């Protein structure tokens, strides 16, 4: 069973590696967008899918990261990929500051506040806040990223960067899910009073979920800025947040596979419908409703965590007194 899965995973990775060889630049770029949204939706999945916090303003964090990269690169000449950790960090700090006072809000109240945050960020960008963001025109002339002296330029170059980062993200997210941290978030989603009553610092974990999700979204912002070489406020509208929100819910809250399939559908379908011209968004809206109606819990709900209890018991018995009994 385990072997079969590893084998499949390996095959998928190989397939992915070879994909740009078969695709024209347009489809490669579609895959790039799917990859980008997968990473973003995975970062939102921590907040929305695992902790169950109604968050519809994820584009705000993404924007902070992208603008950090754009400003550092165009104003100070810092190479694009070097700005990635800082972009993540600034987005995380921003999330910490804004999420702290609102984290106790419940459900729909949190939803509107997060919508408010993404709108405030967009308005600030449009109004050229601090004279740094270039207003509605945005920032242009962001340098192409260099990887070991190789300049990433074409869609297939970005394909490897984006999907490499995506696989890394999946790897880390998978580990986070199957840990004390991931469990704590799920307890909060299920019943936060009971979670607090079982000794979990719910406010802290909610905040950390926001900060971590924002950190990842901020780093993704760097890749977006590098890929587009120009960024403007339109790219970070409330609608972007809605798209990400939809991917997570449609895919199945808290499910990595779900998010992956979700972004293939939400980002891929409108592209497949392109030949419908003006009709394409109508069909897309209909498809969204139908998918939800027929898969009410999302396309692929998260599987229950597996515990190899026997192995754990053996190990625990081997290390008597290991716990702080």
């Amino acid at each position: 069973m385990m072997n079969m899965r590893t084998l499949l995973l390996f095959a998928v990775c190989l397939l992915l590696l070879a994909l740009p060889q078969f695709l024209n630049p347009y489809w490669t770029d579609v895959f790039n967008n799917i990859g980008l949204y997968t990473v973003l939706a995975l970062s939102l999945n921590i907040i929305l899918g695992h902790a169950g916090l109604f968050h519809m303003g994820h584009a705000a964090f993404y924007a902070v990261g992208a603008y950090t990269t754009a400003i550092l690169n165009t104003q100070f000449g810092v190479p694009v990929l070097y700005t990635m950790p800082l972009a993540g960090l600034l987005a995380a700090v921003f999330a910490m500051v804004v999420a702290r006072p609102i984290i106790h809000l419940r459900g729909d109240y949190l939803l509107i506040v997060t919508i408010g945050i993404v709108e405030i960020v967009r308005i600030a960008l449009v109004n050229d806040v601090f004279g740094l963001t270039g207003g509605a025109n945005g920032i242009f002339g962001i340098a192409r990223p260099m990887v070991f002296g190789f300049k990433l330029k074409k869609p297939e170059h970005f394909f490897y960067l984006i999907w490499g980062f995506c696989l890394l993200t999946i790897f880390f997210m998978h580990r986070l899910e199957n840990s004390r941290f991931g469990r704590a978030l799920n307890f909060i989603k299920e019943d936060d009073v009971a979670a607090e009553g079982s000794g979990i610092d719910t406010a802290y974990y909610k905040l950390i979920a926001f900060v971590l999700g924002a950190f990842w979204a901020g780093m993704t912002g760097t890749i977006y800025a590098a890929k587009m070489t120009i960024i403007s406020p339109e790219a970070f509208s409330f609608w972007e947040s809605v798209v990400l929100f939809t991917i997570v819910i449609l895919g199945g809250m808290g499910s990595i596979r779900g998010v992956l399939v979700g972004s293939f559908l939400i980002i891929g379908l409108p592209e497949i419908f392109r030949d419908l011209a003006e009709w394409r968004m109508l069909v897309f809206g209909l498809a969204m409703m139908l998918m939800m109606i027929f898969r009410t819990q999302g396309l692929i709900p998260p599987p229950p965590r597996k515990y190899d209890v026997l192995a754990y018991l053996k190990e625990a018995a081997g290390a008597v007194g290991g716990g702080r009994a």
Partner: protein
Amino acid sequence: MSLVQLKDLTKTFGGLVAVNDVSFNVEQGSIVGLIGPNGAGKTTVFNLITGNYVPDTGEVLFDGTNVVGMRTHRIVHLGIARTFQTIRLFQNMSALENVLSGCHCRMQSGIFSAMFRPPSQRREESAAVGRAMAELEFVGLADQWNNAAKNLSYGKQRLLEVARALATQPRFIILDEPAGGMNDHETQELIELIKAVRDRGITVLLIEHDMSLVMKVCEHLVVLEYGAVIAQGGPEEIKNNPRVIEAYLGADDDLL
């Protein structure tokens, strides 16, 4: 020595005085019952102890420390655990995971060890699973470990709540109507379980309507009416207290 001391606790909601100047002590290693007619404020007293509500006035001393104003998870960390009157399990998660939530506060690993998985993380995880399985065993649910909480019977869900509370390694456990929804057979087993909990050195405070259970396990009883303590003492003493009889006959006649 008293492990827990409640001093002059008062809590009002709007104009309603839910808890009125309540004081009593719980001795280390004892089993104490908090009884009274419906709406007497028993559960509110519990919520004041665990930090779910903050009292208007008064103190809750746990081992000499005033816990009033502390957040609930801090109080759990200090060693007070509870179960809920209306079952609040994580319904979609397995029995094992429910108990693991109780282990959480005795574990250390954060997001970085989750991502990079050093050996210490795995050791901690296996110890936690081991302890959770031990608690399931203790309440008799070991064979149900992989079942989702929502698939357990009502009585078993109550036991699972007890296991989750025990997993926090408390010194003091408060049980809110643990026998609610249990049949006679299950109630008998619960009595043994409560005694076994006390035998582990854990002090027990419980709310219960089933008076035969209360009389069998409790060494000391505190009676609330309209948010105020009207009597306290040993089971026999309480049984014959005229005020208590009056209070119960006025409201509800299931005393004995």
